[in-house]
């Protein structure tokens, strides 16, 4: 069964302008796919469709299927458990007054409480390397720590699909390295919207180039990113990482 | 205007507590009924905005500075019910986290700054907006809401018997007539800045909820009558006169006196209580009459 299936997904903003047009692709279970493209290409908008945050009124039949289930109102509960969404700004996603409350937010909605909940929160925090952070208020955390708490809050629901919006933005090099290696260990299928082309090369087996709401190209990152003409035509560039021999890449690539 | 602990006596603390809880309860109910779920987080964010805006100091003169109070701004941006909720959150946080304003005075502070100020501001702003334009309407709303909140605050202090009315009225009223000028200017400027950048936010955030105002407006009128009117003897008191003409005053005073006369505690001003209660009933009568008139005019306008 495909983890994510999009069939002719089209979306217009409330003001009528076209945001996404005729998007079709699918993700296998555990597959890690990058979503690249210039600002305003529709990457974030696409991610919001994965668990029904967009469109405002759910379309029937839905153009999006998650683990075999169409994303329609009746399924929102299961779909939102299955799809973990990591937002661009950790301050938007981290809305509870303590780390514990925030990581526990998802499972609480799904009915977990008490000691089982506390144990689960502890495990999720340990998974992102923040064991013992439960009682910290978010305003005492660094940017990288905040993002990892967000990730813990998503992972605790054990999603089959992760939708990540610019996960490495404004992390320092060490934070970026740690996040990338953490993401490589996760079993979930991942759709990663990003400008961080190193992340694409090191973590993903496939890249989808999006511009003005349409899929321009879909293929292995090494081929796609090396095509300098294509990259420049869509506001991107050929990453330096491809001009050097890189031991990492042959493992990460397909 | 944050009253600390120790400045209010038990009856004032209790009365204002009841008024505040009633106001917040009414506002919360209206919000639950009329706010779409996607705007619930806006309550918290708007409260945080008011709090942060209060931290911005505006230079006044000679090195002194003033800051925003925010009641009128919240009312215009959010509508009265949501403004009451957001302002209450700000005051509860200031009390519990910053110890700004006393616990026994929390009811009074909530009522003055989170109920009276935004509701008065809204009641002034809405009708005036069409006549005087947004800038003029909001300026007057901000000034009046500040001054009236200060008067209620003065009434509470006087009613508690700590400071005499003839001392506290000019002090609070005078200072806040000045502070209100600053409030009017800041509020107008901020609203102007929002209108210039994102005019649609002002349309979206302040839908006309006339029903919001009925309960809350009544409550504010009630508070004014209980807390301010008894001291305002020299004022030409329209409400009391109405009450007297309608025969409420004697009636209620007697009603109260009859069962209570035998138990009269020396020093407890039953007479004053009678005045208050007749005032309350007078207010209700005037309010109902005003409401009926507005309703009729509204219907006529609708039919034409």
């Amino acid at each position, binding site marked *: 069964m495909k983890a994510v299936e999009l069939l002719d997904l089209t979306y217009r903003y409330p003001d009528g302008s076209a945001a996404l047009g005729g998007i079709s692709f699918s993700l296998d279970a555990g597959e890690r796919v990058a979503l690249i493209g210039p600002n305003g290409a529709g990457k974030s908008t696409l991610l*919001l469709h994965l668990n029904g*945050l967009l469109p405002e009124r759910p379309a029937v039949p839905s153009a999006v299927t998650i683990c075999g289930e169409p994303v329609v109102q009746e399924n929102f509960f299961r779909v*939102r458990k299955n799809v973990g969404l990591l*937002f661009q*700004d950790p*301050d*938007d996603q981290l*809305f*509870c*007054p*303590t780390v514990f*409350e925030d990581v526990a*937010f*998802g499972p609480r*909605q799904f009915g977990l409480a008490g000691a089982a909940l506390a144990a689960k929160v502890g495990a999720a925090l340990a998974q992102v390397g923040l064991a013992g952070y439960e*009682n910290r*208020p978010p*305003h005492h955390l660094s940017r990288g720590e905040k993002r990892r708490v967000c990730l813990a809050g*998503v992972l605790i629901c054990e999603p089959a699909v992760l939708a990540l919006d610019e996960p490495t933005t404004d992390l320092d090099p060490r934070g970026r390295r740690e996040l990338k290696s953490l993401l490589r260990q996760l079993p979930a299928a991942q759709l990663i919207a990003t400008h961080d082309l190193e992340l694409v090369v090191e973590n993903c087996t496939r890249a989808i180039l999006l511009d003005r709401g349409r899929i321009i190209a879909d293929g292995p990152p090494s081929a796609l990113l090396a095509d300098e003409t294509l990259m420049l035509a869509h506001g991107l560039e050929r990453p330096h990482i491809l001009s050097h021999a890189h031991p990492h890449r042959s493992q990460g690539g397909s | 205007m944050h009253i*600390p602990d*120790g*400045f209010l006596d*038990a009856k004032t603390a209790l009365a204002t507590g009841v008024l505040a809880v009633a106001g*917040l*309860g009414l506002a*919360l109910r209206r919000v639950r009924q009329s706010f779409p*779920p*996607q705007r619930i*987080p*806006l*309550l*918290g*964010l*708007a*409260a*945080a905005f008011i*709090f*942060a*805006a209060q931290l911005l100091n*505006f230079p006044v003169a000679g090195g002194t500075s003033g800051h*925003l109070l925010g009641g009128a701004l919240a009312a215009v941006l959010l509508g009265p019910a949501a403004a009451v*909720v957001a302002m209450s*959150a700000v005051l509860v*946080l200031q009390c*519990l*986290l910053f*110890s*700004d304003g*006393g*616990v*026994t005075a929390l009811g009074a502070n909530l009522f003055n700054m989170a109920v009276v100020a935004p509701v008065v501001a809204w009641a002034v702003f809405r009708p005036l907006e069409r006549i005087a334009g947004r800038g003029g309407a909001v300026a007057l709303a901000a000034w009046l809401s500040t001054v009236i909140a200060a008067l209620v605050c003065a009434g509470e202090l006087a009613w508690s018997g*700590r*400071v005499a009315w003839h*001392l506290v009225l000019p*002090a609070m009223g005078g200072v806040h007539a000045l502070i209100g000028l600053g409030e009017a200017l*800041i509020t107008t400027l*901020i609203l102007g*800045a*929002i209108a210039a*950048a994102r005019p649609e936010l002002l349309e979206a955030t302040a839908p006309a909820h006339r029903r919001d105002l009925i309960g809350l407006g009544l409550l504010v009128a009630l508070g004014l009558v209980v807390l301010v009117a008894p001291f305002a003897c020299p004022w030409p008191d329209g409400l009391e006169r109405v009450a007297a003409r309608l025969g409420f005053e004697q009636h209620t005073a007697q009603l109260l006196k009859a069962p209570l006369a035998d138990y009269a505690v020396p020093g407890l001003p039953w007479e004053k209580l009678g005045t208050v209660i007749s005032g309350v009933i007078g207010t209700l009568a005037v309010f109902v009459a005003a409401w009926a008139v507005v309703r009729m005019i509204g219907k006529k306008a609708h039919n034409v």
Partner: protein
Amino acid sequence: MQPDLIDRYARLDSPVHALAAGPKLCAALALVLLVALWPGAPWRLLGAVAALLAALAALSRMPPRFLLRRLLIAAPFALGVAALALLQPDGLRIFLLLLAKSTLCLAAMILLTATTPFTDLLEALRRARVPPVFVTTLALLYRYLFVLRDEAGRMRRARWSRSFSATRAHRWRVLATVAGQLFIRSTGRAERIYAAMSARGWEVK
């Protein structure tokens, strides 16, 4: 006032910190009610409460300067109103009484809030059946207070770095623009927070 200073010492390790938030809140409220509402001039009671609070403060291991500073921050309004009382007959007694009562209550509340994480107080409110919408609003206010304050500070600096006039009128306009932008950003953030809450299964109850 620096909001960060507020709960800087809320997570120390002391007997006062270790008490559960609910009972601590009730005890502090009882003490405040007693002091604030006791009629007349109960000097002996006030003395005893002062001694009790001083003992608790010592037990809590909080830096005394921190407590004193927080006591002084709230002083101006209290002093102003109490000074009015001086103009009445028997004014000095009322003046001293008002100051003593308000200072003691303030000290009790500062001890409570400075030794209890605000989130524990929120939990206590939730258990006391304060309507959930209001507790959520308080929690969001507490969470985003610091974010918004920093945002306002950054915007203000950015504005100043490009202004070359220092007249008062100009400063008012700059501040009003900053505040206006702050509100606009807050509405956008509120929408994104709603999305983040829904993404994790939140529904309004």
